[in-house]
């Protein structure tokens, strides 16, 4: 055992024997780890378990969206604007060939070309060089789906999809939007962005919040006071205001170009920014918990038994913090998604042609008026958001109940 073990007080041989017997006994009744207990208790809560299953499926679907035989999410096709849902087409099948999607993708291996180059002596020589193939093939794929650029992973998945299904695509099971784009495809692609936004933002809030809160709580005293006052001040600025000004600030081409140079695009900035707004609450929660834990009897006990700082942090602080952080996370993600929707309502969120759930919901809102009632444009995106948020909330509740040590015996 590398960890420092509590030194046993010197004792009589008979007592030592008793200790040994006790130790042997405890080996048989080894306690379960808190995580295990929590999991067992969580398993008994069906709303939480259904939610968890839903979220896992959702995440998988979002990741592998490009593999699914969906229509192109961005191909504007005005004659098909605002068509109601259609599961079976006239031919009675679930899908058909789509014109927008290329049926075949040429293999895109590197090709070798000859380029003129100056060598060290200044002579022009021809060198063969491996380069990407000419753009059209990639472009065809990208423009087929309506994208300017796609990252490597998505492009690879899309190529797989074209190999698997060709230009076959499912019908518009959820109808089409006001520009004739397939709503189901947009919901799936939107899920990628919305979920990514929620996760990145939450992650940022987690890292910053936990670090800030833990440091403040652990150091305590004056530093703690000063750090928390800063949080108070930031709390006192209305968040809409900060969002708007940061957004307009980041629309500055110079900033954008600088950030793009290090691989951060607009969307990432957007995620980061929302995350930067959410760390305040997280830091408060964590700090409160650390402060409470620091003086708990079991921590004191461990310390008096000679446990080191690291041991205490690892065995006592982190597990106890983890539960509250996880619970708070499941509640932050829904908040971030709602904020994203709210920003879309204001026209400040994701910008077309990118698509997110908030954007879809806002477009849907405009499609239900007393004159027109394209219910599918609001019901499906709304349902996607609602189901996800419901799941997260129920999962959060379940986790809290499962992890709360005070509820352990009930």
């Amino acid at each position, binding site marked *: 055992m590398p960890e420092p073990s509590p030194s046993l007080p010197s004792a009589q041989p008979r007592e030592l024997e008793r200790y040994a017997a006790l130790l042997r006994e405890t080996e048989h009744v080894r306690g379960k780890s808190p995580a295990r207990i929590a999991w067992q208790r969580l398993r008994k809560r069906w709303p939480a378990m259904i939610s968890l299953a839903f979220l896992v499926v959702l995440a998988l679907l979002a990741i592998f969206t490009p593999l699914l035989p969906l229509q192109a999410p961005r191909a504007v096709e005005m004659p098909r*604007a605002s068509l109601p849902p259609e599961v079976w087409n006239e031919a009675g099948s679930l899908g058909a060939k789509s014109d927008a999607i290329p049926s075949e993708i040429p293999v895109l291996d590197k090709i070798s070309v000859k380029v003129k180059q100056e060598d060290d002596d200044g002579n022009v020589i021809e060198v063969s060089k491996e380069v990407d193939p000419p753009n059209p093939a990639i472009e065809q794929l990208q423009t087929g789906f309506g994208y300017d650029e796609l990252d490597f992973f998505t492009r690879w998945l899309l190529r797989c999809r074209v190999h698997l299904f060709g230009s076959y695509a499912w019908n518009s099971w959820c109808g089409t939007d006001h*520009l004739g784009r397939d709503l189901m495809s947009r919901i799936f692609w939107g899920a990628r962005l919305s979920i990514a936004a929620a996760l990145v933002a939450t992650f940022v809030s987690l890292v910053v919040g936990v670090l800030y809160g833990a440091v403040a709580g652990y150091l305590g005293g004056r530093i703690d006071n000063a750090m928390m006052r800063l949080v108070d001040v930031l709390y006192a600025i209305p968040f809409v205001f900060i969002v708007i000004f940061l957004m307009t600030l980041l629309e500055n081409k110079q900033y954008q170009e600088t950030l793009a140079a290090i691989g951060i695009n607009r969307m990432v900035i957007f995620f980061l920014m929302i995350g930067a707004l959410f760390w305040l609450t997280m830091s408060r929660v964590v700090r409160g918990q650390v402060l409470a834990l620091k003086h708990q009897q079991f921590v004191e006990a461990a310390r008096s038994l000679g446990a080191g700082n690291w041991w205490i942090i690892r065995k006592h602080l982190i597990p106890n913090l983890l539960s509250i952080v996880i619970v708070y996370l499941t509640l932050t993600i829904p908040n971030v998604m709602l904020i994203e929707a709210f920003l879309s309502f204001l*026209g400040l969120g994701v*910008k*077309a042609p990118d698509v997110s759930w908030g954007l879809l919901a806002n477009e849907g809102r405009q499609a239900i008026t*007393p004159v*027109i009632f394209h219910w599918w444009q609001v019901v499906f995106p709304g349902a996607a958001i609602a189901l996800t948020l419901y799941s997260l909330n129920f999962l959060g509740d379940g986790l809290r109940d499962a992890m709360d040590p005070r509820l352990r015996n009930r």
Partner: protein
Amino acid sequence: MGNSLLRWWPILVFLAGIGGIWLWLKKTELPPADYTICNNTEVKTLDPAQAEGVPEGRVLWSLFEGLCAHDPRTLKPIPGVAEDWDILDDGKRYIFHLRKNARWSDGSPMTAEDFVYSMRRVLHPLTASPYSHELWYIVNADRYTKLELNVGDPLEIELSDEEQIPADEKLLLNTALNSKHKILKGKLREIRQVPSTKPTKPDGKPEFDSTPEYLVEVDGKVQSFHPSKERSRRYTGLALDFDQVPIRALDEYTLEIVLKHPVPYFLELMGFYPYSPVNRKCVEQYKENWTRPENMVCNGPFKLQHHRFRERLRVVKNDQYWDADKVQLNTVDFLSLEGTSTALNMYLSGKADWIERVPPSVMAELKRLKREDFNPAPYITTSFYRLNVTNPLIKNKKLRHALNMAIDKQAICDTIVRGGQQPARNLVSPVIDNHDPSLGPGYDPAAAKKLFLEACDELRAEGHTIDAQHPLTLHLQFNNHELHSAVAQFIQSEWQRHLGVRIVLDSLEWGSYLKNMTALEYEISRAGWVGDYNDPYAFIGLFEGSSLQNNTGWKNEQYDALLDKIRNEADEKKRRTMLHEAETLLMEELPFLPLYFDMSTGMSRTYVNGVYPNFHDIHPLKYISIDQEKKAQVLAEELRP
């Protein structure tokens, strides 16, 4: 008993709160008006000299009447406060004869002096009126506003020694041009730059204060005027002597205005709301509060009765109006409702009788339903894309033409905007009378591709790399809006398909979008232009090299010279020919891509008489009446559960 009552105090407080709010609302409730219109946003100001938006215009046209008014059908200028006018000196001198029975709403008579004051107020440098430039056709008016002073010019200095003006109110609008202030008249002797008090820039160049010091000879003595100088007199305004600007009251009821050059649409301008007369006594007495309902004095068919900020403005019939017998409405409400969906809801539930525009999403359906109350009419607006010709790529004329020919504008009108808009092949809106449009080429992807390849060759020769791996890439910026975004996406796919140009879409916030446009930090930018008057010049003047609204970096000497000639041409026929020539030149050079001509897409209830579709979507309230019988019938039918 008392104890148990006390224990329920939260509930009592709750009930008291609800009761209080209910009473408050009941107390401030207004009976419905005769006619209610949704006026889009809250008016920014009701001071004609400060106003510039369409919602402001609608209210101001009901409160004020200028020298001329509008015919409700054609919007041609008809007599307003001026009952007659003479146009002399080849259209350079206007004599307006004011009607003797025109009165302010406080009962005092209106005189030519009121108009001199009002126009002077618009022109005054300290008013910073957004529409002062349309009066610059008047001799010396632009020098008066822009403070373009030369040595030897007669000046007038307004002194406010007697009146204590708090420091930060000194620059408040309405402090200048006060009849209580003393006026000094003198001759400008010298303009001296004053070194700035700010630290000099690192490059060592001395910086000057933005306001120079003026040395003026008054009664034989030279005096110095500069805001920072301790010894200088406190003055609120220093400007060219207004006697130099020929807006003159010849007698109580005759007004003379002399222009630099003939302006065929000058009468139309005289009906424009920024040049409405304002009551000097009222403005001077109440300062910035003169537009409040309790203070405001106006001269139009209606007067302001009630203003609930951001909710509604209520105007009532003005009994002092000279033509009050013709006015049929007693009360009119202007609702401030920002969302088009909300406005539509109000309209459909019978709470409003007119809305400015319907959400784009319902347009197609309204047309399909053939609703009698939805009649889109051509609107004096051209939608186009500005091209930044200072950009090394867009500088290429062939590229500009290729981009133009590769857009299927008909498809944009039929499938995206869908309000009956017409595809545009020129700049000047077809609603403008007697203009011979100079049409550019139509949709022709093959020719576009050919031109594009030539352009690419030229660009390559200039050192740009354009090949399969590096397709020509252009950025297209637009302000974030559903419709603009849809059009941009469509055009993006058109250019990608026909030309192989890669387009990056930049959907921007309004502020950033404008800033990029004025700073020429864009490549292609969405734009729309509303003509202020029914003359091709309203559009042609846009691309003059010195125009502030040009924003393309395009400057063509030939074009500017032509415009100069157009302005000075008295012969209407020759003028029109030259306007056609100018447009031809513009279409040849193409610093913009015309897209479509816009439509007004509002709704007006069928029981409202006197609302005629016209190109500015202006419907003077004076001529509007309500058919009460039909109203009851229509609403009963529509609101049946």
